């Protein structure tokens, strides 16, 4: 199984790359549309600003090819943090920007009383029995975000996190599309386990 991590658009992906390489997966950085054709699994990882990421993906001519591979060819895709937010129809970060729309929903700023933003640090993500969260030692993962994905259909939600009383969707799954709001590549043993669990889900 050849894994391609989309590069050059969403910040430094070195830690995602090396986390997968650690287990000797066949992992590659993808910067061109042609390279997408050769991979079996696509990873969209990173942090940053939603509109900037969309602009960069379009500028590098990856936007339409990604749509084609994920929607048309139904290739498995994993979105991490901003990568998962890109699945939404629209994000309200810095105006209104259209996302891929692979999972219906909106990306909104986290709102609550006297809430400290961004939500940054270790927090618990509780899976609903989804295989993504199989065999975890604890529920702790590393988070770093101010905006969160609010899907239309609750059925796509497979993991939830509570931040100062506000419920945040921390994992989604719909068909060939899986996303996590936290950073498995920065979440030590749990994170590595989740990445391996994901690849089992992708292969099945």
């Amino acid at each position: 199984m050849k894994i391609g991590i989309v590069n050059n658009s969403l910040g430094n992906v070195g830690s995602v790359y090396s986390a997968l390489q650690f287990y000797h997966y066949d992992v590659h950085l993808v910067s061109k549309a042609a390279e997408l054709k050769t991979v079996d699994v696509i990873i969209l990882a990173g942090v940053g600003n939603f509109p900037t990421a969309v602009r960069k993906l379009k500028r590098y001519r990856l936007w339409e090819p990604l749509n084609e591979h994920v929607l048309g060819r139904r290739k498995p895709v994993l979105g991490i943090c901003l990568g998962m937010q890109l699945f939404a129809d629209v994000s309200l970060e810095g105006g209104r920007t259209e996302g891929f729309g692979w999972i219906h929903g909106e990306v909104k700023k986290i709102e609550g009383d006297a809430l400290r933003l961004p939500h940054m640090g270790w927090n618990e993500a509780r899976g609903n029995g989804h295989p993504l969260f199989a065999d975890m030692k604890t529920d702790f993962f590393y988070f770093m975000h101010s905006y969160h994905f609010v899907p239309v259909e609750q059925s796509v939600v497979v993991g939830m996190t509570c931040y100062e009383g506000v419920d945040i969707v921390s994992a989604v799954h719909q068909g060939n599309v899986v996303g996590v709001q936290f950073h498995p590549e920065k979440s030590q043993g749990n994170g590595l386990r989740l990445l391996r669990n994901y690849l089992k889900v992708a292969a099945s």
Partner: protein
Amino acid sequence: MDVGDPVSQGMIYDAQGADEIIVVDIEASRDQRLVDTRIINKMITKCRLPIAAGGGIRNVEDACRCFSEGADKIVVNTHAILNQKLIGSLAKEFGNQSVVVSVDVKKKPDGTYGVYVFSGMQYVEEDLTTLLRRVVDSGAGEVVVTCIDREGTLQGFDVDLYRTIRNLVSVPLIASGGAGCYDHMVDLFRETDCDACTVGKMLFLRDYDIVRIKAYLKGEHVIVRDA
């Protein structure tokens, strides 16, 4: 004291379940250069935990270089204190959460604390209270306060210091300098409301590891993250 390669040390602490690694080139400001950002990149590719990096950061461009090499947060000390506008511009550019301000202090004979920059070499007139208020107001997301007198002594944290300054710092406050045994951390977290502490020499000397530290703290009802 040379205790080895920062990347391999980082991997050890990661494996032991550290919550975060702070890696700072403490001579960078004094030598008027920036931390070698290749080290940050090596660390983020070898370690699976958040990394705060610093050393010699003078402006937004320097910080940008650290972030593009994969740092999750930056740590600023000397230039955050000497240049009153720096924290504001870093916070505006990268968000408060990514900006950690580190302050080095020494106890004066009268019991108050003096602030030092350039790795403890130069005294600063601005008093600690004013300084802490200023850095938090201008956008520091976290504040690390190091007691130079305790640094490397393994004699315990300056608990009085953190008790005094806690109310001045509305963001997470991290105690640094003096950790030498389990009970130093228990004392710190019982006696003060610090959010975290740093551990350096105590780990370098290899008599302790983070797994056992966390287990001990848990036994003493200090809340720690299970790793």
